[in-house]
């Protein structure tokens, strides 16, 4: 029995907590806005100026009606021309002050607002830079881009259009509240009765609109992501002639975007009337109630006139604020989304005690490494990309990784570059567990040619020098020569300064690979990782590269992944990966003699290459 009561009590308690959460919102807006405001600190001076501008503009905006009234009362009605002139001069002066203050206000609000938003943009970007590769594999790039563009723009609209309105409306509201109280406390209290109603309306609105504004952010992000993907895959779209289908899919997304936005239009249209209605009701009540009082001669008619007049001024700022509500909600939803991103802690940050290993000798060791792309992988599951890999590569050795596709070769390379951490076991370079090494200090000494090449838009020179922008032109040209690309680069319309286009689209596949290769070489790596680095390159160029590499690999460790077994050069050790595990390892001769998987692979290859 007691138990049941307890339970009931607890349930009621829970209900209240849930209700309160709903009312307050679980989005911690307060914290976010506070944080945003705290970002203003470096610009204190300008913020102060902004407030001066806002105050001056609001105050100067109130003065002209008063002065005009004075002109009528004490100038025109009394026939005092001198006074009239004086007041008009004051009127003009105030108008000029108003204009000047508005200039200051607009400029400063614009400055501070834009500055803070640009800082926020940079922060999002910097935060993204600190995220791991795994994070980027899980997220759609378009959505991440949307955070830095659409969401910031939504906030921008709020800041540029909102701040002034919010500030001056609130100020006006406060002023009117004081005036109403001074005029007549009783009537004022009647008017203030609307406040709780307003609050309730706002809370209801908030509950109903829960998620609606967030949805608009998600939809526009989806559109951005779709654009990003279908535009970067335009070659596939065109070659399969699938344009209509993409237009259809875009129509769907576009339609969904319209639908969620329409919902906010409905919401806003229904919130606004609530405010309007309250204003009307309040006016009616004041007239009837105050009128009654006036009839009984308890208050003066002038008071009612003034009161009704001020009532308009009272509700006007509230209306203006409600006008802004959509912009506000949209901006806040955008802020939520941005914070979702900023609150995602980077999953692979350097530990505080992480060391800078200095110049690497290039010794690599994998010690009982298990790795899966699925984060919480169970030992029994069939999701391991690498299983129990033990391997030692002495400094200066060239390690060749071979194996069927999907065996885990690229994964191995990614672990050495610490793009991922293994779930079990350790990856060591020069005897340091990579988890205790500063990532960038490590990667600066790696030269990686990943399997999926990527060039940035910019010139060939900029791309080759990506890893070391301070490199001299001679060094860049030397790197290009090493990969046998001099001839093709010189033949380009602007030589080394030719723009390669986005992702290097204006180069042929092999040319792209050569540029990526030269980029890795120029970085003067201690460890070179070549993941199918010449798969799209013709044999003649490949030979040139091999000659160049021979010199380059002196004293450097290299991991070479290749399917064309001819690419494997000076491989001190060949490791055959199968299904994520090491099937066998040794020199070519040893492996051929052993007659294991390698000799089969080799057999298949030499057979196919004889044709």
């Amino acid at each position, binding site marked *: 029995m007691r138990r049941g009561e307890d339970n009931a009590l607890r349930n009621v308690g829970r209900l209240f907590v849930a209700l309160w959460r709903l009312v307050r919102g679980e989005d911690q807006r307060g914290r976010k806005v506070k944080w945003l405001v705290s970002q203003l600190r470096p610009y204190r001076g300008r913020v102060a100026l902004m407030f001066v501008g806002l105050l001056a503009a609001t105050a100067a905006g109130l003065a002209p009606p008063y002065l005009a009234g004075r002109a009528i009362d004490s100038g025109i009605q009394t026939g005092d021309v001198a006074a009239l002139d004086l007041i008009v001069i004051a009127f003009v002066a105030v108008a000029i002050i108003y204009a000047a203050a508005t*200039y200051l206000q607009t400029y400063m609000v614009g400055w501070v607002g834009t500055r803070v938003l640009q800082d926020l943009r940079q922060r999002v970007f910097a935060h993204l830079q600190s995220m791991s590769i795994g994070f980027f594999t899980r997220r759609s790039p378009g959505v991440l881009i949307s955070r830095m563009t659409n969401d910031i723009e939504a906030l921008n609209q709020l800041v540029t259009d909102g701040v002034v309105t919010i500030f001056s409306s609130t100020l006006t509201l406060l002023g009117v509240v004081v005036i109403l109280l001074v005029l007549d406390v009783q009537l004022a209290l009647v008017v203030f009765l609307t406040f709780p109603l307003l609050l309730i309306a706002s809370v209801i609105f908030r509950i109903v609109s829960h998620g609606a504004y967030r949805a608009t952010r998600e939809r526009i992000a989806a559109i951005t992501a779709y654009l990003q*993907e279908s535009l970067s895959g335009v070659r596939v779209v065109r070659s399969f002639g699938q344009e209509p289908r993409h237009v259809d899919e875009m129509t769907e997304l576009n339609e969904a975007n319209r639908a969620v936005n329409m919902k906010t239009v409905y919401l806003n249209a229904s919130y606004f009337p609530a405010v309007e209605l309250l204003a009307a009701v309040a006016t009616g009540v004041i007239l009837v109630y105050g009128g009654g009082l006036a009839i009984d001669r308890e208050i003066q008619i002038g008071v009612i006139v003034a009161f009704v007049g001020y009532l308009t001024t009272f509700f006007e700022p509230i209306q203006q604020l409600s006008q802004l509500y959509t912009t506000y909600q949209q901006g806040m939803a955008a802020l939520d989304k941005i914070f979702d991103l900023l609150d995602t802690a980077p999953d692979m940050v350097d530990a505080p005690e992480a060391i800078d290993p200095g110049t690497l000798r290039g010794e690599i060791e994998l010690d009982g490494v298990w790795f899966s792309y699925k984060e919480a992988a169970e030992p029994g599951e069939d999701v391991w990309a690498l299983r129990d890999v033990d391997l030692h590569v002495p400094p200066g050795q060239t390690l060749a990784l071979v194996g069927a596709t999907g065996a885990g070769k690229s994964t191995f390379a990614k672990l050495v570059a610490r793009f991922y951490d293994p779930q079990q076991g350790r990856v060591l370079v020069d005897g340091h567990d990579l988890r205790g090494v500063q990532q960038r200090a490590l990667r600066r000494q790696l030269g990686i040619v990943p399997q999926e090449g990527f060039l940035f838009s910019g010139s060939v020179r900029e791309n080759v020098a990506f890893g070391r922008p301070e490199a001299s032109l001679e060094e860049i040209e030397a790197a290009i020569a090493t990969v046998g690309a001099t001839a093709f680069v010189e033949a380009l319309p602007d030589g080394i300064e030719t723009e390669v*286009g986005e992702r290097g689209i204006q180069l042929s596949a092999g040319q792209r690979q050569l540029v990526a290769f030269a980029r890795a070489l120029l970085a003067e790596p201690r460890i070179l990782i070549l993941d199918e680095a010449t798969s799209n390159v013709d044999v003649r160029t490949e030979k040139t590269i091999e000659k160049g590499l021979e010199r380059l690999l002196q004293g450097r460790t290299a991991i070479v992944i290749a*399917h064309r077994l001819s690419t494997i050069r000076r491989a001190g050790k060949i490791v055959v990966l199968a299904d994520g595990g090491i099937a066998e390892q040794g020199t070519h001769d040893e492996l051929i003699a052993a007659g294991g998987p390698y000799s089969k692979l080799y057999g298949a290859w030499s057979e196919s290459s004889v044709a």
Partner: protein
Amino acid sequence: MRTYRRLMGFLRPYRFQLWGSLAFAWAAMGMTVAIPWLIGRAINAIVEYDKPDLLPLALAIFAAAILRLGLTVVRRLVAGKVSLAVEFDLRQVFYAHLQRLELGFFDGQQTGQLMSRATVDLGAIRFFLGYGLIFITQNLLTIVLASAVMFVIDPVLALLALAPAPLIVYAASRYNRVSRPAQQEVQQRIAELTAEAEENVSGIRIVKAFAREEYQLHRFQRAVSRVFDQSIYATRLQAFFSPLIGLLPQIGIALVLLVGGRQVINDNLSLGDFTAFYTYLVMLAGPLRMLGVAMGMAQRAIASGNRLFEILDREPRIESPPGAPALPAGGGRVQLRDVTLRYAGVDAGAEREGALPALSEVSLEVEAGRTVALVGPSGSGKTSLVALIARLYDPDQGTVFVDGVDVREVDVPSLRSEIAFVADDSFLFTASVAENIAYARADASLEEIEAAARRAQADAFIRALPDGYETRVGERGLTLSGGQRQRVAIARALLADPRILILDDATSSVDATTEVAIKEGLQEAMAGRTTFIIAHRLSTVSLADEIVVVDGGRIVDRGTHAELMEGCGFYREIAEHGLADSVFLQRDLEAREEMARL
């Protein structure tokens, strides 16, 4: 102004709603005027009568308020709906236009730039249409009406009051002139920033691999500063002109006070008239003050419109001619006749004299059902050559025929549906494996999908994926290994069931054992199709009936393996390099000799 009119053109389908919404807005304004009048009546009643019945008046006020409310709500709904509809339409038109543009257009474009147009720029337009337009018309109407009433009350004073009007017009037009280019530049810089962000996010693996995070951040900061500087410039313009436009009517008020006041003092004007006049003048000043802000909004929208129209006005250069017939039935015979192709380069349009053509005077005939291998050094023009067959580019000179007809004279979709590519970068979409394979034929059954996958030697690995065929591959298929990706791309091309199959370095990332297996699958798949195989390795080339050697954009040799081994130096080089023993073992020997020496 042209852009403005074109933007308005997008409002045409909604003109009734729009006018309706304006009518509602004006009616609501009428109510706004009526309410103070009713209040005045009520006050008079209190003053004049002893025990007045205030309730009817209060109810009237209430009713008027309700009416206004209804009008306002409807107006807002309609305006919201229209602005969303216009945004929708604009995005549709824009995206559909992008899909009409030829591939060459995208060579010189940054994805981020285009994305920004379809999102940020469209947002600015919508904001203006949904919010600014009605606002402006409402204000303009107020201004016109108030001016008219003022003229009725006292023409002389009205002239005085409107004395600053020419100045206002001048200031406003100046503001327009300077602000539009400024806004356009803001939008442009936002687009640049988007492109910067886009490249960084897509290239994050390279950024990380080379530890260039700081450098990228620095670049992004520069893009951000550029946006900031330009925005501040635009803000300064607004901060200057907007108060100026608001200030000028105040001068009019001052003049009226000065002159009109004197008239009242000299009894030339009644105080009542003067007060009324003054009230209207004040009514006029408010909208004028807001006009500056609204104009800023309009300028931004027009600037954005300009940027949209920039793309919309770029006519597609590769399109089916009107009424073009579908590609006639046939076996897939391909002919290239004296074909020369020059790429436009980054600054499209400007013919580059220095650039060598990617293909020069290439002539090639491939009979239906044959398999031809294209070999040649990197950048020799192999990919360019096959791109012409599907009319991804049009040659500058010469003609391409498929089954006897000029590809420029047939319906483009019908042509492309008969050609399937495995491109050298095997791009996959963020979708399930099954959807990717069925890309060219969304209606394909699961059996067909699996059959295609089996032929491409992809079935086994796909089944081993966490969700089998329903596993989603990440961006560009990056959650698959290189060889897996290529095999999905091969399956995608096979499922398209094309007349002409093009394999552009399609097995470069596949190991030898798998390749042998794929070759078998391909051999089946190639039966009855014309196939082009581009490869650098002999192993792949061996599938072909005939080999074409391309170098420097020209066909330099052509023949069977045996013929070319005889007569073609380049081919011999490939063959010899590919021969396992001669290279691999020889190296191994070197290494062993080296060891021995040590």
